[in-house]
């Protein structure tokens, strides 16, 4: 019964939080509106995400977000140093192939987005069968190290989150 009313509890929760962020005011009326949206939107959009993966581990997801934010800040400083001080002919850019073991499209999308948002690496493409990501790195003296870093730092955590 509860499952039928809230087919996607995490989405409902996310909608409530989003609505409160939008109104920017803690009133009871906002909660009523948030509850209405959190019920209706998941119900109406349910046909569009058959077989969507469930987030198995919400605390791990929050820890992952914190880790990515921290990495983004550190990597920004690194890349700023490269842009400002490194002579252009010494910048070694390279394409790197990163095999992914993640099974669901959603998890791969999160991994690809993470790689793009951490400065210094951009997800350029994916193999047509969805098993390898093509990554461009701004400065990669050792491409293998970057690949291993992505796999151990982000992919193992995503595996735990999406199961």
């Amino acid at each position, binding site marked *: 019964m509860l499952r039928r009313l809230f087919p996607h509890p995490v989405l409902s929760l996310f909608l409530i939080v989003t609505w409160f962020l939008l109104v920017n005011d803690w009133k009871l009326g906002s909660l009523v509106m948030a509850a209405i949206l959190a019920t209706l939107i998941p119900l109406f959009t349910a046909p569009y995400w058959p077989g969507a993966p469930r987030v198995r581990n919400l605390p791990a997801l929050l820890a992952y977000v914190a880790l990515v934010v921290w990495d983004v800040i550190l990597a920004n400083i690194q890349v*700023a140093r490269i842009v400002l001080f490194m002579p252009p002919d010494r910048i070694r850019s390279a394409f790197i192939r990163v095999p992914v073991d993640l099974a669901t499209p959603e998890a791969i999308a999160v991994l690809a*987005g993470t790689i793009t*948002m951490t*400065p*210094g690496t951009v997800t350029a493409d994916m193999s*047509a069968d969805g098993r*390898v990501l*093509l990554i*461009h790195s*701004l400065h990669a003296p050792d491409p293998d190290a970057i690949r291993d870093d992505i796999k151990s730092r982000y992919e193992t955590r995503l595996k735990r989150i999406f199961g």
Partner: protein
Amino acid sequence: MTDALDLLLAALLVIAGGFGLIGSYGLIRLREGMQRLHAPTKASTVGLGAALLVSMLHGLGTGTGFSWQELLVMIFIFVTAPISANYLSKLHLHLRRAELDLPETGTARDWATFDHQPEPAEPSLPRRDT
């Protein structure tokens, strides 16, 4: 208290402006298209993040209170920015594959940008009966 807050806000604004400037400077300094793609991702993360943080904290000093809306801006930027970056790099691959030193996929199929094999017909969507 407000002095300390003002100092913090000023410092954050300088950081935001600094990273925005470095991002734009990278656009003219880096040499190839793929390298240039890296520069705007800088400005949109730490630069924008710092500016939004200032906007959130500013209300504390003026009495209007902490503002939460900027969090949404940050979330939406983080979700959408990788998509435009991906489109730009796809365009780049299309235009200049011959010059780029692309590695092989190592699997049976090519990179998705160049793979013209038609996908199998859309599978019928499973129904969620639970």
